[in-house]
């Protein structure tokens, strides 16, 4: 009897405890709540790529991957709870997909020496790796997004925005406020006027903001939205007949579900991006074959090629490549979070590697270093075609204003370092 109990207890411990041989990738997802429509395809893309690696390649470097999903509901408190409950399972890297959660986790991951990747969101000044040793936001951050928008508008207006007015419609949250400082600096530099129009959560009602836009007639409207705010804003823009070609959103305001509700009126709407769109990449054939057709997909398999699915898959690919890099650096397949951090800091993504992964020209080539955790900040522009219901990349991935962004990153990260007693430097 005693033997049986011991066996049972051991069995239970093995089932409940971490499987140390697996490479554990937590997914702090949100499949419920007001932002689920964006959270689901991202989480599916993230999960499906790791399933592909397990099914096709036998994991990474011979080690199987294990996805640990935890529902945050895009709620900061729940996100922190998810972090606390999963970090003990050998979590290699966190991707919280929420700026609010990111801010709360920065001191925690630093203390626990676990890396965090906030791709296209989070604290922008985390690009300074000498201050934020465990936070990475390659290949682009919010300020790159803001600068990318302005660069695109400059390019499409003969390089001159003097006297023009740009209205920023933004989610009234830490996330939505991120680009304001950058846009203010760029307004000073390029001589355009900036109007800011906050929209309260969740953004179901925006009549006041769009009546103001109708009264003031800005030349361009830039949107920093998420969730229902995006759909309502695009619908309201169509209602007041604001020209869609002059309406451009950040990458979190440029998915299929953001524009479909407005139907044909959304035609021509644009959004910046840091990765490619569509499903015309060989990697998706593999996902179809090894993941969807075998019934192992995280979702119904109908999201492949959608903007946010692609982004989730891209995030997973970058995590997997960093894990490979870490395995190479440390000479072991069974890496720890600290080793993963080293792999992320030494990550090199080039065209040859992307092509070999079945993702040619899916994203920009870049290197990460201790000094630069943010990558090159290259930004492209996509446009919605309402008839074919597809997004298309209409520009190359172009450089953003390093001069303005660099000085803002230096100022903000220096302030953070002095507030928190951090001595900047490389590990």
């Amino acid at each position, binding site marked *: 009897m005693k033997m049986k109990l011991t066996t049972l207890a051991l069995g239970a411990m093995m089932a409940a405890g971490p499987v140390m041989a697996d490479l554990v990738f937590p997914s702090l997802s949100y499949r419920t709540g007001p932002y689920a429509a964006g959270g689901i395809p991202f989480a599916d893309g993230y999960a499906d790529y790791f399933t592909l690696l397990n099914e096709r390649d036998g994991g990474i470097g011979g080690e199987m991957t294990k996805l640990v999903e935890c529902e945050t509901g895009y709620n900061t408190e729940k996100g922190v709870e998810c972090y606390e409950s999963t970090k003990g399972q050998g979590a290699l890297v966190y991707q919280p997909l929420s700026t609010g959660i990111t801010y709360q986790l920065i001191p925690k991951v630093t203390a626990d020496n676990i890396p965090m990747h906030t791709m296209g969101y989070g604290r922008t000044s985390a690009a300074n790796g000498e201050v934020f040793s465990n936070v990475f936001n390659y290949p682009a951050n919010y300020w790159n997004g803001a600068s990318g928008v302005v660069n695109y508008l400059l390019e499409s207006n003969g390089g001159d925005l003097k006297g023009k007015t740009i209205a920023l419609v933004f989610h009234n949250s830490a996330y939505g406020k991120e680009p304001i400082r950058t846009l203010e600096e760029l307004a000073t530099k390029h001589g355009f006027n900036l109007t800011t129009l906050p929209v309260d959560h969740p953004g179901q009602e925006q009549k006041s903001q769009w009546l103001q836009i109708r009264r003031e007639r800005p030349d361009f409207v830039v949107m920093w939205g998420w969730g229902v705010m995006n759909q309502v804003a695009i619908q309201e823009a169509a209602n007041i007949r604001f020209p869609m070609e002059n309406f451009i959103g950040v990458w979190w305001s440029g998915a299929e579900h953001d524009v479909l509700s407005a139907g044909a009126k959304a035609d021509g709407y644009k959004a910046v991006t840091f990765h490619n769109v569509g499903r015309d990449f060989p990697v998706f054939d593999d996902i179809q074959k090894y993941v969807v057709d075998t*019934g192992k997909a995280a979702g119904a398999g109908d999201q492949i090629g959608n903007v946010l699915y692609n982004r989730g898959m891209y995030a997973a690919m970058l995590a997997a490549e960093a894990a490979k890099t870490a395995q190479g650096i440390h000479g072991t397949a069974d890496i720890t979070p600290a080793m993963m951090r080293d792999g992320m800091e030494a990550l090199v993504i080039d065209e040859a590697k992307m092509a070999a992964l079945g993702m040619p020209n899916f994203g920009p080539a870049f290197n990460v270093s201790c000094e630069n955790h943010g990558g090159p900040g290259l930004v492209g522009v996509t446009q919605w075609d309402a008839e074919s219901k597809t997004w298309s990349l209409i520009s190359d991935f172009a450089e953003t204003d390093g001069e303005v962004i660099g000085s803002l990153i230096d100022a903000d990260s220096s302030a953070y370092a002095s507030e928190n007693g951090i001595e900047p430097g490389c590990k």
Partner: protein
Amino acid sequence: MSDQFLFATEVFINGLMAGVLYALVALGFVLIYKASGIFNYAQGVMALFAAMTLVGIMQGQVPFSHIINAIFGTEVHHFGWHVPALMAILLTVGVMVIFAWLVQRIVMRHLVGQEPIILFMATIGLAYFLEGFSDLMWGSEIKTLDVGLPQGGSFWIEDMTAGLGSDNFYGFFIDQLDIVATVVAVLLVAGLVLFSQYTKQGRAMRAVADDHQAALSVGISLNFIWILVWSVAGFVALVAGIMWGTKSGVQFSLSLIALKALPVLMLGGFTSIPGAIVGGLIIGVGEKLFEFAIGPMVGGATENWFAYVLALLFLVFRPQGLFGEKIIERV
């Protein structure tokens, strides 16, 4: 007329229209509270469920397809037909009646005579259950709702009013969907008034609202009336769901429109149908004009704040709201 005055008038008109939309949500709360003393926290989720059901029926979607496919390894998603909007609305009303019957049968019947806070807590549970149930039944992706309602600014109104101001005034912007919502709200309120005044069931409903025990003593079935009230509230939720869902697509956020109804209820009173309408209009106009006049000075996004502060002021000086029944405490 000065442009500024015209702009303020435009904001005022749009505030009225927004107020009608708020009132549509508030009406559902009032109906249930008036008849049963229950503050139905699930009213917003009912609007979401009703709108999701409507879209699902219109598009011929197989309910619970994710579960069916997961269990049986099938790939069924659609029946392959499309149901016309009017028929789909009627079928959805039928679903809401069944929902009302189930709520009464499974939840409320067992809580008769409990404290109001217990009933309120039960509706919180109901809201969370219905949220998950809606997702399981119809999926959580955003759905486009098109029942043929017009959208976008009215060209005719713009053209007719463009000459009132300078070249900087382009005529009044009034969303055609808001006009439709106003007409529907007027018809809905008129219908509810006629129903409660001139039908046997309506009079029974009023009797229950006035005094449960007296109504029981003359043979009115409390169970039937509560099912009736929840059904009518379900119908109102469907109307609100159609109006809001047409604007933004049908998605989880639709359930949060209840937040817009709370200040309306505080202001108009929890027991008055005219109060819900007038409260909605005051909140709609007040928040829009405040945002127009004061918003730019303080960084904007004042609307939610203003609505709740106004409601708070009413709570302090007139806790029963504008049209609510006067609170009389006898010692």
